[in-house]
């Protein structure tokens, strides 16, 4: 998986060039990211349906910032939770959490700068 490349132009293009909405999305991501990561971690000890749901949420967050690789990680986890293939779930959650942290880092720097 390649490192997260923040492609503002492509994200902005999807938002019709609307900076205001873009800023709103970044703020929202940063505001909720810790809570979302914690929920995903905790879902490992819960039913598969909960893990599936949390992975789904993370998928939407990453897709919003055009992180296709990250969204794909989340989707794979989501689908495997759905079919009950949970053997490698903890490892997958770790990888996904690292990815979310990486994206959050980039966005946070951008937001501060």
């Amino acid at each position, binding site marked *: 998986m390649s490192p997260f490349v923040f492609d503002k132009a492509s994200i902005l293009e*999807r938002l*019709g060039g609307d900076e205001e909405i873009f800023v709103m999305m970044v703020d929202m*991501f940063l505001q909720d990211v810790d809570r979302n990561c914690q929920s995903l971690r905790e879902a490992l000890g819960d039913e598969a349906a909960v893990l*599936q749901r949390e992975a789904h949420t993370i998928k939407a967050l990453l897709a*919003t910032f055009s992180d296709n690789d990250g969204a794909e990680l989340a989707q794979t986890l989501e689908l495997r939770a759905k079919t009950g293939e949970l053997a490698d779930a903890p490892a997958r959650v770790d990888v996904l959490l690292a990815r979310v942290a990486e994206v959050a880092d980039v966005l946070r720097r951008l937001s501060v700068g």
Partner: protein
Amino acid sequence: MHKVLIIDDSEINLTLIRALVIKLGECEPVLFDNPVKALEWCRSNEPDLVIVDYMMPEMDGLRFIAGFRALHGRTEIPVLMITANDQKDVRYEALLGGANDFLTKPIDRIEFSARVRNMLALRTGQKFLADRAAHLANEVAERTREIRDRERELIYRISRAAEFRDPETGAHIQRMAHYSEIIARGLDLDAATCNLILRAAPMHDVGKIGIRDHILLKPGRLTPQEFEIMKQHATLGYELLKDSGSEILQAGAEIALAHHEKYDGSGYPRGLKGSAIPLFGRIVAVADVFDALTSERPYKKAWSLDDAMRFLEDGRGSHFDPLCVEAFLAGWEDVLEVRQRFRDEEVPVI
């Protein structure tokens, strides 16, 4: 202002769609992260557009659309479903299941705005047509009422025309029409039929227009030959009114032809017997004779109510249908009220 219902379990998507919808202008977004609650809201609220995500826990977008379409009055409201790019089969299913169009994730503002605008334009058109249909239905009802009122007025005036050439008065046709209605009610006929006989009974003697004055206005007793001519008013009235498209005129034709038939078959013009005489004819026979007896005419005094009542009772089964006499006497209070209301001196307009 368009009410746009947005259902997505992901908060970041809800926020994004809400922002995009507001940017479109003239839109009031209503947000739900739970499709079950959204469906509940739809029971008592009517959105102009629904934007619903496909993949949600508890209830997916397809099931939401099925539930939404099953609600009363929600079959036409546009629905957009949000699906990921790779969910082609879901899209097909959504379109077959009642979605009007779909949006792909991640959401693209240009595509989003165009599709939402199209759906809102569709909704505006639907509402316009519905308003227009309701407006036209009102107009038609209004015009129909006017035509019906005019029909009643014309019938009353035609009936009066016949009576003008007769010693009988305008009040007579009012009274006998209301007596006929009293009998119809007593026979438990439905309200529309009771109203029909009230409107049609005044035409019973309209055929007198065709009877020559020296017979119609003769002060003394008619000779047998003259009486034969006089009898023709029943058939003349029928000929005048028959084959009309108007229900009231059709009833009037039947009444004109049958109101001189007698229950035992000794009446005219056809000599029909018992239930072979049309019901309206049997009803009007009682009403017409009773009013003729109790009214003063140039050639006779008015009978007392008791004498007239006795005449009806005596005529049960011979002259009159016993059930019609019974219904008339059962409505005696109303009969007296009608007599009071329509006196010979003054003729109120129907």
